[in-house]
C-alpha cells in the first residue's frame, strides 16, 4: 500500500482536490479487494472443516464481517495517513472526513467479504471476485465520492443526511443478506 501511494506521489506530485478524492477511493477499492479477499480464499479446506464443526454458519459469517470491517478501517486510516504524507492533505473538515472514511471502509469490506465467500465456494481466484464485486460496489463508491467532496469545501451540501442514511441502510442490508444467505454457501 505504501509503495502504491509512493508511486502515485512520484507520478503526480501534489494533485488537485478532485484527483486526490478519486485516487483515494480507488486505492481503497483495490486495498479492500486484496485484503478482504484473503479472508475466505486463503483458508485451507481442513481449517474450514474445523470451523464447520465448532460454529454455525451465521456466527461464522458475522465474525468474518466484523473482523474485516475492523481490518478495513485500519487500512483506510493508514492510507489516509500515507496520502497526507505524500500527496498533501486537502481535508478541511477533519471529523467529517474521518466519519466518511470509516463508513466507506465498512461498506467496502462488507460487500467484498460476502463476495469472497461466494468466490471461494466457486474455487476461483480473486479475478472472479473482481468481476462479481465491481459492478455491485460502483453505486456505493459514487455516493462516497460525492459526499467526500463536502470535506474539501466550506459549503455543506444539501441531501447529505439522505446519502448517509442510504449508505448505512445498504450496509445493514448487506449484513442481513449475508446472515440469511451464508448458510446455503456453507454446507457442502
Amino acid at each position, binding site marked *: 500500500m505504501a509503495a502504491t501511494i509512493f508511486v502515485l506521489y512520484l507520478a503526480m506530485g501534489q494533485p488537485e482536490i478532485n484527483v486526490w478524492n478519486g485516487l483515494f477511493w480507488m486505492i481503497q477499492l483495490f486495498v479492500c479487494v486484496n485484503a478482504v479477499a484473503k479472508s475466505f480464499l486463503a483458508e485451507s479446506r481442513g481449517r474450514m472443516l474445523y470451523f464447520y464443526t465448532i460454529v454455525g454458519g451465521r456466527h461464522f459469517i458475522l465474525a468474518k464481517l466484523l473482523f474485516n470491517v475492523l481490518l478495513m478501517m485500519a487500512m483506510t486510516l493508514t492510507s489516509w495517513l500515507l496520502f497526507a504524507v505524500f500527496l498533501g492533505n486537502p481535508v478541511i473538515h477533519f471529523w467529517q472526513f474521518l466519519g466518511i472514511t470509516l463508513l466507506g471502509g465498512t461498506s467496502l469490506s462488507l460487500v467484498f467479504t460476502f463476495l469472497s465467500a461466494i468466490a471461494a465456494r*466457486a474455487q476461483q481466484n480473486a479475478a472472479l471476485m473482481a*468481476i*462479481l464485486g465491481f459492478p455491485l460496489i460502483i*453505486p456505493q463508491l459514487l455516493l462516497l465520492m460525492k459526499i467526500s467532496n463536502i470535506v474539501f469545501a466550506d459549503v455543506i451540501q444539501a441531501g447529505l443526511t439522505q446519502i448517509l442514511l*442510504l449508505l448505512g441502510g445498504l450496509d445493514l442490508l448487506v449484513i442481513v443478506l449475508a446472515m440469511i444467505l451464508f448458510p*446455503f*454457501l456453507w454446507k*457442502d
Partner: protein
Amino acid sequence: MRKSWWKILCAVILLYTVSCGLLFDVPAREILHETIRNLFFHVCMWMAMMVLLSASVYYSIRYLRTQQLRDDIYAVNYAKVGLLLGILGYATGAVWAKYTWTEFADMSQIFTEPKLTGTAIALLIYFAYLVLRGSLNDIDKKARISAVYNIFAYAMLFPSIWILPRLMESLHPGRGGNPALNFNDLDSRLRIVFWPAIIGWTLLGVWITTLKIRIDLLKEKSLLNG
C-alpha cells in the same frame, strides 16, 4: 386454447402497440417532437426487464427453499431474457438520446448521466452472474451459488438504481421525482397505448423465456436419461 390465451393477447397487444404507436396522433412537445413515440418501446423495455429480473430472483429464492433443479433453470432463463431486454432498452434509449440530447448537451454530460451508469451496472451484474455460472462445473453447486449471488445482487442493485438517480442531477425526463417518467405529464393519448404496451412487451418476454425453459428442460432430461 385455455393455456395459450395470453400468447394471443400478447400478439394482439403488440400489434396494437406497434401500429397505433406509430400512427396515432401524439402531443407535440418541445425537443421531443415525434420521438415521443419511442416511449412505447424504450420505457416498456425497462419495465419488462425489471419484471423478468424480479421473476428470476423469485425462482432463485424458491430454488434455495426447495432445491429443485427446475427452479434454477427458470431463474437463469428469466435472467437471460431480462438481460436481452436490458440491451434492447439501451439500444432504443441510444436512438432516442441521439435525436434529443445531443442537440443541447455535450458528451461528458451524457456519459455521467446517473441513469446510464445505473443500467450499465445492472447489465454488468447480470453478465457477472453468467460468468459465475460458467465457472462452476457441478450442477447443484452452480445452482446454489448462483442463486445466492442472484439474490444478493438484486437486493443491492435495485435500491441503488431506484434511489441514486433521485439524488443526482440528470438530463433524463422526470428528474427530481420519479426517475423513469413523470406520470402526471403523460397525455391521455399516450396513456392508452403506453399501459397496454408495457403488458405486451412483458408478456413477450415471458413467452420467450418459457420457450427457452422448455428447451433447457428437454436438454436436462436427455442428459439424465442418456
